């Protein structure tokens, strides 16, 4: 089960949904909002999702985890909206008969969620500036597209 949530994540409730009499292990990953990134002080994160595709893709990812690992239940929730330092941004829980599959599936799910779901994060910094993570750093310098360097003299 996957969902996007505008409300704070209730870990106790999610944990209950993973109960299964055949389970001998529960592995949980929580992604928290941290107060710094790449040397800058972060005060707030803003998450945005392309909801219909995120939902479909997440369900595919969970199905893939079920194919790869011997697990019983899997639940992932991702927050959208504004989050403060310390908030849980993403929650992944997996129950399985044995711990090895629970650990591996949990790791697989969070890794795939981070790279495949159409979800974006804007970091707001202590100095009032902000950037969309992974967008600004790889943006092509459009503002420079009309820029022409000084003529380069080619020596014959």
């Amino acid at each position, binding site marked *: 089960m996957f969902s996007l949530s505008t409300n704070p994540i209730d870990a106790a409730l999610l944990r209950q949904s993973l109960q299964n009499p055949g389970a001998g292990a529960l592995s949980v990953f929580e992604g928290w909002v941290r107060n710094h990134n790449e040397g800058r002080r972060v005060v707030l994160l803003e998450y945005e999702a392309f909801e219909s595709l995120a939902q479909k893709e997440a369900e595919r990812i969970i199905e893939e985890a079920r194919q790869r690992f011997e697990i019983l239940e899997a639940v992932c929730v*991702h927050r959208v909206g504004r989050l403060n330092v310390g908030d849980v941004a993403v929650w992944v829980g997996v129950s399985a008969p044995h711990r090895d599959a629970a650990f591996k599936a949990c790791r697989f799910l969070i890794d795939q969620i981070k790279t495949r779901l159409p979800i974006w994060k*804007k970091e707001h910094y202590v100095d009032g500036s902000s950037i969309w993570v992974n967008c600004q750093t790889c943006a092509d310098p459009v503002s420079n597209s009309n820029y022409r360097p000084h003529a380069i003299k080619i020596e014959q």
Partner: protein
Amino acid sequence: MSASAGKRVQIHYYALLREQRGTAQELLVTSARSLRQLYLELSEQHRFSLSTEKLRVAVNDQLQGWDDPLQDNDRVVFIPPVAGG
């Protein structure tokens, strides 16, 4: 009206593109034949900073190739580099 008169498409923008466009969605009529052509037209008009190599594109909730044809009534979403988690 000839077939080449234009297609009505709905476009959704997210994250950086939404901010650069100044809106989350718009309806427009375009003569663009492919998704690439549509993006390049919009990109030039609104000075988007991301090139097609950095983006993916979805039509009606399915990922598509940039050179796939644009159809009447398509719901197009340009997907900037993701950063979930």
